[in-house]
């Protein structure tokens, strides 16, 4: 009851504040120029650019999430203390340190470096330009969002509680169907299964990392677009006049900034927030139906 009253009071005061702003001439125009209705004034270039940005963000999230999870499971399994070869454990710790370093380096520098490498392969070995785009989207996905997922998985193993380790080592584990034990050794496959179970023991942390990974994927893609000129021309080579949407939302925002068109920037912000909200709702629904619904208090 108290929290409900508090919420109503908050919105009441907020409403009064905005009404006062509307009444004042100087602020009225500014308020309308940064409100959500600015979405309706965005032109076609922005909408087309948004489609490319949002598609790339989803792709970065999927690639980063899958690769981050896979790396986390592999590195986590290698450091599990279960008769593991010492050489493999050391390799796992080195891999973890390298990925930590990868995360610390500013994304702008990482993207610039890999853009140079990929462009070199394109010139020297004739790699299609589409793959440059794919490599950069993957790097963007892995650098921020993918790292969050990886860190959550690795942390669940490396800092696992004694009880978690004892239980997961003791439970019945179904045999794999594809005879992977014969290829990688029974011990390593068992470590992989136990690592997966240890992540299950910290499922809330893992679920939060997935949500964060999605937020960070949008951030990473917009940074990528800002740093790379006409990024989507790598994917869709164009002839003729320059098309602004080929730079995605990142480049379009930079153009709007240079022309002091802050209502366009505000419109793009609201558009990104809307997209973020819709996709995050879908992710949360999936997470809830598979995992968190069984932990209701």
């Amino acid at each position, binding site marked *: 009851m108290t929290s409900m009253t508090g919420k109503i009071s908050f919105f009441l005061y907020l409403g009064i504040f905005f009404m006062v702003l509307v009444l004042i001439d100087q602020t009225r125009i500014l308020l309308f120029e940064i409100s959500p209705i600015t979405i309706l004034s965005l032109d076609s270039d922005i909408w087309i650019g948004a489609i490319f940005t949002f598609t790339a963000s989803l792709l970065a999230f999927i690639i980063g999430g899958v690769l981050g999870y896979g790396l986390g499971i592999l590195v986590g399994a290698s450091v599990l203390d279960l008769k593991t070869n010492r050489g493999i454990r050391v390799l796992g710790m080195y891999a973890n340190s390298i990925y930590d370093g990868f995360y610390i380096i500013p994304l702008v520098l990482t993207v610039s470096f890999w853009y140079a490498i990929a462009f070199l392969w394109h010139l020297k070995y004739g790699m299609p330009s589409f793959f440059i785009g794919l490599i950069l989207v993957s790097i963007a996905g892995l650098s921020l969002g993918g790292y969050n997922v990886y860190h959550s998985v690795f942390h669940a193993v490396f800092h696992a509680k004694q009880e978690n380790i004892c239980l997961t080592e003791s439970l019945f584990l179904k045999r794999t169907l594809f005879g992977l034990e014969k290829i990688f050794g029974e011990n390593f496959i068992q470590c992989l299964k136990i690592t997966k179970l240890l992540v299950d023991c910290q499922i809330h942390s893992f679920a939060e990392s997935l949500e964060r990974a999605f937020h960070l994927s949008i951030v990473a893609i917009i940074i990528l677009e800002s740093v790379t000129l006409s990024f989507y021309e790598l994917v869709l080579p164009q002839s003729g006049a320059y098309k602004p949407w080929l730079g995605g939302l990142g480049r379009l925002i930079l153009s709007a900034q240079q022309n002091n068109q802050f209502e366009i920037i505000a419109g793009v912000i609201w558009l990104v927030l809307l997209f973020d909200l819709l996709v995050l709702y879908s992710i949360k629904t999936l997470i809830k139906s598979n995992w968190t619904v*069984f932990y209701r208090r």
Partner: protein
Amino acid sequence: MLKKLNLKITAGTIKIDKDFEIEFVASESCFIWKSGIELTFLNGFSGIGKTTIMNLCYNYLKRKENTSLATIKFEASLNLDNSFTVYVPQNPPMVNHWQIKKLLPMNPCFKEVFFPKEPQSLLSKRLGECSGGQKLRIYTWSALERLKAEDKFEGFFLLLDETLDGLGNDKMYECLRSIMDVWRKLVRKPLYILIASHLYKNECSSILQSSQLKLEKTNNLSSVCVRMFNQ
């Protein structure tokens, strides 16, 4: 005839508390197991060091790290390197989203031991749909199925830390007797059960032919006293 042996465990301060410290003082054999199925109860009041001993036992049996632990003696023909150990700890993580059937084989053997009256549809449930006690029994069930599945080993250890205490005295002993009966029928290999429990009755233990490790506090030190039944 009851035998009472006063034994001391190997040296090293394990746990320091503001009121007391547990020091296991050197070194005689502590757990004496023979072939077949051996059941040893480890009991003492709360805080005396039962879980500490269980953890040390598990680390020793699983990883062969001989830290500050009693020497475990068993039948000479049983090679410790060829044994497999499972442990259900006192406060295991309750992973509610796990499907029960994923923790068990296609044809589980120990269902009648733990859930004799539950229908087969139990297997399609998630752990979150079970009570706390049921979850612990499911974990123990899965651990036993794991032991049975590891057929390349010659001896098996099952460590339970107050796992079945929720069943109450009589039900717990009934459950342990069922485990031993089913194991004898299906797996003709040695099984050694070490169970830390607050529930302990002399007459029931003598029926199960178990031994007891009783932790007592003397002069701020925990020591172990072993009583062997029907030896």
